[in-house]
């Protein structure tokens, strides 16, 4: 495992909101091809970490090195451009667009047609448009919601919306896929299906960073797990070790492990 090259390195990332230290000098490294878990109690700073990574928030200090290059993530679209895609804890789909259109938007980054192409509908543009549709269809298949391709995103059930968000993120051809609580609101059976999906994504060469409160899922999926508490990393290791860490149990897991 440790031979695998680094993909993401976070160095002493810090973020405050007024008096609240949401992230306090958090450092961690993620290797290519792994599924890396990020857990911690509510309000520990997990989502904030995602937001800093993807350029939605600006961290006050520290930095990220992604794929060997220091991230200039002052704008989310730049983060997406270098290969970081994400989903949102509170699902953020384009509700009034169909499922397939949502995924097609995800292709924006990797396609080029501009105004003149659009107006003239030249062969190159038409070819590109065709490719976008095909890729979007493939991705919907991949996450298993192709039957709903032409339904409005907001009409999909919760679980399907989560899948659609993943498909949209994958459409940007990410190297790192960051998932924020993808299993929230799913029952055991649905979570199981999600596990299979995430495993597949990883197998297909995308590194996954996963925030999740479903301990069973995290422990089953992740190679390594970091635990945040009050903005600080209190532990980072393989699941088996993390699960036994007394600080983690006290702050996060509580008495019974679900």
């Amino acid at each position, binding site marked *: 495992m440790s031979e695998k090259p680094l993909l993401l390195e976070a160095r002493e990332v810090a973020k405050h909101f007024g008096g609240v230290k949401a992230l306090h000098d958090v450092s961690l490294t993620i290797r290519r091809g792994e599924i890396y878990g990020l857990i911690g109690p509510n309000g520990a700073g997990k*989502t904030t970490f995602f*937001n800093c990574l993807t350029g*939605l*928030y600006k961290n006050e200090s520290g930095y990220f090195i992604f794929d060997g290059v220091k991230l200039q993530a002052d704008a989310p679209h730049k983060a997406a451009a270098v290969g970081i895609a994400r989903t*949102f804890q509170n699902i*953020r789909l384009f509700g009034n667009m169909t499922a397939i259109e949502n995924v097609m938007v995800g292709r924006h980054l990797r396609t080029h047609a501009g105004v003149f192409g659009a107006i003239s509908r030249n062969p190159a543009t038409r070819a590109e448009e065709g490719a976008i549709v095909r890729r979007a269809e493939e991705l919907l298949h991949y996450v298993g919601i192709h039957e709903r391709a032409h339904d409005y995103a907001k009409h999909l059930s919760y679980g399907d919306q989560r899948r659609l968000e993943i498909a949209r993120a994958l459409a940007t051809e990410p190297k790192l896929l960051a998932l924020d609580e993808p299993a929230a609101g799913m029952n055991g059976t649905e979570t199981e299906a999600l596990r299979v999906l995430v495993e597949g994504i990883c197998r297909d060469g995308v590194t996954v960073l996963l925030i999740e409160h479903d301990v069973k899922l995290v422990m089953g999926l992740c190679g390594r797990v970091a635990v945040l508490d009050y903005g600080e990393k209190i532990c980072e290791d393989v699941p088996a070790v993390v699960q036994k860490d007394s600080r983690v149990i006290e702050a996060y897991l509580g008495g019974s492990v679900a």
Partner: protein
Amino acid sequence: MVRHQRLVAESLTMDTLLQQLINGLTLGAVYALVALGYTMVYGIIGLINFAHGEVVMIGTMVAFTVIVFLAGSGMSPLLILGIGLLVSVVVCMVLGWALERVAYRPLRHAPRLTPLITAIGMSIVLQNVAMIIWGRNYITFPPMINKQIYEVAGASFTNVQVAIVFLAALVMLGLIYLVHRTRIGMAMRATAQNPHVASLMGVDINRVIAMAFIIGSALGAVAGCMVGSYYEIAHYQMGFMLGLKAFTAAVLGGIGNLAGAMAGGLLLGLIEALGAGYIGDLTGNFLGSHYQDIFAFIVLIIVLMFRPSGLFGERTGDRA
């Protein structure tokens, strides 16, 4: 060259500056009063009530009518003014209620821009109704109040100006108290942020929204009376410009924020007064008072570039 410098010196004297500050402050207070009404409605349903300027206009018109009617009755002027104000407040409250009921309530769930167009439509309707009732001509305020002119350090102001500034401050404080310290105020804020959940908490949102319109319109009436007694002139189209300025003021301060509306109004008044008063001299008459309205917008744009939700901008409570 020499002459130019002398002119600059003349206009930069202390008494002129003081006078301009007084001018700006009064104008600003007028804007602020109107802006408070805008903000009241905006704060609760996110609607730019373009018809608010017309409510102000109706307020002025009604007050004028009542005062003219009573002018010969031998009552004391102060009493007549009071009655005028009262009647106008009541009429505007009814108007505000009716507006909400007839024009806006059916559109609660409509796309965002729909009520905006309705508001514009209502504003046209109200203007033309006013034109039919009060005619096309300018109307003057009967000289009821003895305008007292005070002089301080070379600058002059009137009792009406004092009353306006005082009243604006009073109204704003009252509103802030209402919105932030009372139960109905809390219900208003909750309704503004999530009407469905607010009704789960036991808030009758129809009532609360109607209240906001009624209070906003009452403020409009008060503003109308102030504007009327300050400028002593009224016209069925006076509401449009006033409304626009007030809207600008409200945005400048952070629309939806009461203190912001007040601050925005005052700031706008001061910018206009100082802008018109000094820019000409400062730019060697390259820019003059004909660019007065531009200063206001430029300040607005600069403020919004640095504070995208206005000076006192509502804290957003948005996050990814």
